[in-house]
């Protein structure tokens, strides 16, 4: 049971990759990419959790109360911003791709073949 968060992270990573590989629509691939990323949130927060720990906010709890690790939370915050911005840029690219190729199916994007 104590492995559950990490198993679910692995699941999210792989199912997200599957979504990108199998996608016939770029927007679906982009949304799958956000699922891949959510695996990193779950791993990071799972790592820093402490049984019975409180949130690392000492506004209404006395100093010295056991708290969960604050560092991983900061890393996840950065991670979320990165994810949102890269997704925004990819969506913009998808809009342009549809304009130029007339399709969002990666199979129809044929500007670059060797």
């Amino acid at each position, binding site marked *: *049971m*104590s*492995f*559950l*968060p*990490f*198993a679910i*992270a*692995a699941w999210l*990573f*792989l199912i997200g*990759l*599957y979504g990108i*590989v*199998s996608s016939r629509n770029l927007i679906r691939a982009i949304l799958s990419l956000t699922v891949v990323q959510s695996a990193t949130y779950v*791993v990071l927060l*799972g*790592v*820093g*959790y*402490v*049984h019975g720990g409180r*949130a*690392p*906010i*000492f*506004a209404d709890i006395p*100093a010295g109360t056991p*708290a*969960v*690790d*604050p*560092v*991983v*939370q*900061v890393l996840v*915050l*950065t991670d979320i*911003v*990165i994810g949102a*911005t*890269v997704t*925004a*840029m990819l*969506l*913009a*690219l998808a*809009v*342009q791709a549809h*304009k130029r190729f007339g399709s969002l199916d990666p*199979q129809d994007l044929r500007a670059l073949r060797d």
Partner: protein
Amino acid sequence: MTRRTRLVMFGIAAAGLGVVLIYGLAGLPAFGDYHGVYGHVIDRIGVTERHATDLVTALNFDFRAFDTLGEEFILFGSVLGVVLILREVRDDHERPRQQEAEEHSFAGASAALRAMALGLIPTLIALGVYIVVHGQITPGGGFQGGLILAAGPLAVFLAGRYVRMKRVAPHAMGEIGDAAGAMGYALVGLGGLVFAGVFFKNFLPLGIPGHLLSAGQIDVASVAVGLEVSGAFLVAWSEFLDQAILVRRNGAR
């Protein structure tokens, strides 16, 4: 590769990667048994030395402020990227669809929805500002608050006024907010260099823990980030909005 070959190859590869991941993750301490030294040190010195009660915000804008500098410029650069990628379409061969541009109805916004959205605006702005300035005390900070702030003008659009939204939040203003916020955050770091001798070293009074004006640079940094984030999201949204509303002049209508 055909779709079938691709999926078969991926299936094999994913099974392998799954095994690798599970092997690695299995070495982690059991969930809930974490005793890392970094977090403990921060727990110990965060409140005493930084007078911030939300240690996540203290880490974000003080101990690891330099990471956040990179993060803010990822946001800044990506939004420039969105502008760059979508820029071509706004030149002469496209123009807003007249009737929709003037009185755009978003997915059939009813009168009730409009009223609700209009009522939402002041709430959103108040909430956004509150979250930005209280980052060092309670959950939230520049990023979360900034995004909520940007949602204010978005609600104007939900209320059915595309042009009015553009008037409330002109594109250039969003862009300047984005750039000024990013620069402001960098200047907080530079302030540390100039007034305290080290980049991002706190140079502002620490105040009393739990009070609004406490925790030194954290509050200023949080405001800068809030400005940047709200500008950035406004620009990005309005770029996509333009895309959805603009049509080709030589198109069907």
